């Protein structure tokens, strides 16, 4: 089943002044259970593409369908609801609420979804366990390592039971050990629970772990490799 369907997607920044065609006529679909890396040099349009898929940005041309629903014409509040219900986000940094503990950060998104307290409790405990950060659950982000913080972010993204997880350079701030750990967890979740991951990266070791690698250059897909 297709979770993402992009058709002739383009994004033009500053159309009035100095137009920048950050994404140029991209057509692409992502199926459930994929473990896909978007790669390419800096400025090639990875973040722009992910933002449009995630409903954080509006495309200039073309269409975006997520789970069969076009998000093209949604208003701001509909997009917010859409992101909350269907998409898990992991950013490069500043993922977590600094005043909340790891556990509270995971539970917060479920509170936003109005999940009942019992399910929430079970889910956060389970996720903490699976991410291997059970012992750190009462620590605040500042008391966690970068790798642990990103694992909390992944747990938070999953807590919302999204259709897929979007991760923009999730390992950019991590050392190689933590990068490996995070990828192990993501790969395991993908393999065992069929969770769809789409992430962008520069890092060759991360690219090596991906099952599909989409390479962008100047906003255009120059290769799409399944392995």
């Amino acid at each position: 089943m297709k979770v993402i369907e992009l058709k002739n997607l383009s994004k033009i920044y500053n159309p009035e002044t100095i137009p920048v065609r950050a994404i140029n006529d991209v057509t692409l679909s992502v199926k459930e259970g994929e473990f896909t890396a978007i790669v390419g040099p800096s400025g090639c349009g990875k973040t722009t593409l992910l933002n449009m898929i995630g409903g954080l940005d509006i495309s200039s041309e073309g269409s975006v369908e997520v789970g069969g629903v076009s998000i093209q014409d949604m208003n701001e509040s509909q997009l917010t609801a859409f992101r909350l219900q269907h998409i898990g986000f992991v950013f490069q940094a500043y993922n977590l609420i600094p005043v909340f503990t790891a556990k509270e950060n995971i539970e917060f998104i479920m509170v936003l979804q109005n999940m009942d307290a019992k399910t929430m409790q079970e889910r956060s405990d389970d996720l903490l366990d699976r991410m291997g950060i059970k012992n750190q659950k009462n620590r605040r982000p500042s008391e966690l390592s970068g790798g642990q913080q990103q694992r909390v972010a992944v747990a938070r993204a999953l807590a919302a039971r999204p259709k897929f997880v979007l991760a923009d350079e999730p390992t950019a701030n991590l050392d190689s050990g933590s990068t490996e750990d995070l990828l192990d967890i993501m790969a395991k979740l993908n393999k065992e629970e069929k969770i769809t991951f789409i992430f962008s990266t520069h890092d060759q070791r991360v690219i090596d772990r991906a099952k599909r690698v989409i390479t962008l250059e100047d906003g255009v897909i120059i290769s799409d490799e399944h392995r």
Partner: protein
Amino acid sequence: MILSLAWKNIWRSKRRSFVVMSAVAIGVWSIIFMVSFYNSMTGAISRNSLQHDYSHIQIHHEGYLSEPGLGFQVKNPSRLLEFSSQISDIEATTGRLIVNGMVASPKTNLGIQVYAIDPANEAAVTDLPSFIIAGDYFINIKRNPILLSQKLAEKLKVKVRSKVVITVQDLEANIRAGAFRVSGIFHSKSPRINNGVIYLRHEDLSKLINLPDTAFNEFAYLLKDNESLIETKQMMEAKTNNMVRTYREIAPEFDMIEEGSAISKQVITVIVMLALLFGIINTMLMAVLERTKEIGMLRAIGMFKRKIFLMIVLETFMISLVSAPVGLMAGFLTNVYFEKNGGMDLSQYAGALEQYGGDAIFYPQIAQSTYLLLMLVVMMTALIGAIYPAIKAVNLKPLEAIRKL
């Protein structure tokens, strides 16, 4: 959980929150203090002129208003004296014969109002003997004793036992002069009395101007309490064809003082609240700008605008919810302190205060409801102060906020 988030956010920048909380607490405290102070001052002014000058109710001939003097004496004075025994709310009654005149000493002479009184009745109504600061209350001078205020005594350069000459006109406009001797010098709490009233015995004045012992042009009544003021007035009106007026009708300044004090209190409150408002807006704006990325992240993961708005409003609200009671408590304790320790001594400024009929000791006075009202006002201020920062927070674009990673 948003509540908990807002609460925790307050303590992120402890120093900043502490500063704005202190400002709120100090602002609230200062308003409590000012309001208590105003109440104390205006309360004293009103109380003093009520107790020591106007009394609760006065009776005159209806013509007396347009032409004060001997011409319009009260009708049936003996009945008016009997009211004391007929109306239970009356504490004391005094009759006066008031006439304009001159007092002369060897040094100078001054225009004054002569109050011819019955010493015992006057004492019961206005507590005049308690203000005697030199000499005594009509005791040691056997013939024609007189009481002068300290102020007049100084102007006339006379002392106790000095002789002064009082000149008045009788009913036929003949000038009558009599020699009097200063029995006592008083310092009343009523500026009006200090400035131009002298007291002598009713019998001495009636002899001087050939009027009967029963000639009065003013009766003053002290009531047991203020509650029954209107009722008592109506009872009196039913029993006499003279003009009966309450102190509020006699002296519009009572209302003016109250209104003026209410306005002053409101102005002070508004000024303090405006200062707090800007402090709150500034603090919350800083708190929002500092968290641009975090708020962008929250928007990105699906937190609705209205919840972001709510979060900022709650933060602002809780800041004042924590600090306002501290200020209220401080204000309350300050008042308790002054009550326990005999008030705040303002005798340094006694001169100025007494000019307006105030007291030199400040006894804080505040209605319980003021605390509640002030709490509400602070909450309102916080709410208003939260709006602009909250709008700022809501309008942060998740994308742009995150781009700044």
